[in-house]
């Protein structure tokens, strides 16, 4: 008996995900986005290995070849230290993607904890937690991150902490809303009726059922997180050179425009394309996973 019902449940699930994948493939823009993200992830893993001039990535310089225009030897040209811009852009991929992912992940974990506590418990806990996250939402995230980063001092980890601290309230709101809705569902009442503890109801029954809106938000946020990381780098409170980070590269290159435009344009393009890919993918995932957004 149990075997049969589990089998049919499993095949129903497989069928649903097959359909979702079909819808996703049907949307050309989502596929373009997925491909772009795949390229970004490829360079995240292998960017450091594939960089044609790995010594430049580690901070080595070659003053004899400063500011060379794009050529076969240096497709993206060289910068003020004679470093190969292509190598720096490639090696910058893991920095930006890792930082963006860390921000979204920490933000999600904090937000899910706060949102689930608030939505599941209700009462004064809900009031306090939600008023606090509303408050955090009134301060634009970039400014809040700037203030925290200024107080903590520059650096990779501090920057991630600063952005993540301004990131969680959106998730808290989302998760609270979803938990509030799920709490009234029949399967929760059923789980309660057979004597499941509140923790079990929350972790085994409610949270697994609200995963997809959270994943959609994470994928939509990934591009924005990369942008924020680059923005802090551009202002000068993010990752410090010689670590190659796109925003930092751009802020240095700005001083050498317009004659040496390639030092600024290529890191900027890499940033734009990575974010564009994540946003297209996120849009596609939302259309597939979130039935309310489908039109």
């Amino acid at each position: 008996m149990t075997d049969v019902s589990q089998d049919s449940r499993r095949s129903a699930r497989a069928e649903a995900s097959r359909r979702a994948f079909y819808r996703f493939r049907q949307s050309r823009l989502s596929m373009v986005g997925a491909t772009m993200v795949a390229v970004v992830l490829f360079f995240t893993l292998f960017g450091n290995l594939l960089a044609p001039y790995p010594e430049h990535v580690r901070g080595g310089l070659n003053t004899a070849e400063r500011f060379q225009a794009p050529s076969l030897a240096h497709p993206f040209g060289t910068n003020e230290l004679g470093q190969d811009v292509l190598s720096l852009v490639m090696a910058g991929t893991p920095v930006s993607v890792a930082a963006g992912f860390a921000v979204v992940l920490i933000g999600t974990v904090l937000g899910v904890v706060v949102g689930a506590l608030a939505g599941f418990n209700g009462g004064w806990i809900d009031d306090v937690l939600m008023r606090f996250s509303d408050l955090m939402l009134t301060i634009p995230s970039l400014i809040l991150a700037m203030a925290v980063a200024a107080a903590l001092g520059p650096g990779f980890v501090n920057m991630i902490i600063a952005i993540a601290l301004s990131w969680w309230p959106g998730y808290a709101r989302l998760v609270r809303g979803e938990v509030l809705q799920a709490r009234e569902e029949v399967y929760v009442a059923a789980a309660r009726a057979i004597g499941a503890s509140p923790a079990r109801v929350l972790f085994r029954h409610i949270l697994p059922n609200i995963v997809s809106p959270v994943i959609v938000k994470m994928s939509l946020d990934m591009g924005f997180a990369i942008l924020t990381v680059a923005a802090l780098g551009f202002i000068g409170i993010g990752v410090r050179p010689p670590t190659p980070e796109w925003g930092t590269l751009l802020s240095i290159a700005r001083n050498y425009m317009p004659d040496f435009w390639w030092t600024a344009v290529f890191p900027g393009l890499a940033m734009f394309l990575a974010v564009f890919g994540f946003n297209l993918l996120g849009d596609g995932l939302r259309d597939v996973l979130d039935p309310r957004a489908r039109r």
Partner: protein
Amino acid sequence: MLRFILRRILLILPVLIGMTIIMFVIARVLPGDPVGLAAGPNATRAEIEALAREFGLDQPLWVQYWTYLSGLVQGDFGTSLFSRRPVATDLAAYLPATLELVFSALLLAIVVGIPAGLMAAVWRNKWPDYLSNILSVAAISMPRFFLGLLLQLCFAMWLMWLPLGGRFPIIFDPPPGITGFYTIDSILAGDWESFWTAMRYLALPAIAMSLSPLATILRMMRASTIEVMHQDYVTTARALGLSPRLIVFKYVLRNAISASLTVIGLYFGWLLGGTVLVETVFDWPGIGLYATSAIVSQDFMPVVSVALVIGVLFVTANIAIDVLYGLINPKVRYQ
């Protein structure tokens, strides 16, 4: 209506107090040694202690917060640890420039975004819709500071049509300050030459700022127009044989816009936050540039005050939108 407005305004108070607490925590609790930083590496112990006393940093935290809050109420935002100038004076000098930039960007985004969104919805699933969809995702993905750099490179450095940065030529006097907005001030003074100059300086930063909100307003407007077009009263109007143009402009537009209003309110805060980047690129003398230059010297009272001012402006803007919403849609008033 008056009660509705008053209730909204009263709701700001706890938010403001909460915001000051957050900012106070960031400014005074997080950093390890603000005084040591301000005094410099060669300062003696006595010098550091004197500086701490001067800024009241030797008091217990709640006393410090109380001093900070009562100062804020009187318009005292604290003193910059480095320049020793009151932060409030600086803010008053830089805020109009930021507001002028933000309002022009928002205006541009609304003026272009709403008709474009309407058009995308009317031509739904045809090529103008697809094109606007791709372009709007691209616009949202474009880092504002990179867009600013590209605009500078094209229009200021290569074509030399527009100035590279700044707000007004240093050699000329800006128009007499009434509103602090150079464009409006020069119109009020009847000085068309200054108006033209101010517009030329404003153009690139405003475009760089407006692209992303423009795209969001477009998408929001498209979605809400499509929703409204499926309403029964639109079907009825169509069944009665009204012309499509009349239906869109008389019945759909008004209802679709009210849904987009909320987004515009949210975007105001986002624009205020993003002004930091665009101001840095274009050397626009606003509070964003003020904050970034303070960050570089690890002087965080200005940074925290800028964050506070932006938060207050954001909350105020949302209440203004709420009130506007109540004016357009009477149902909201009685909830």
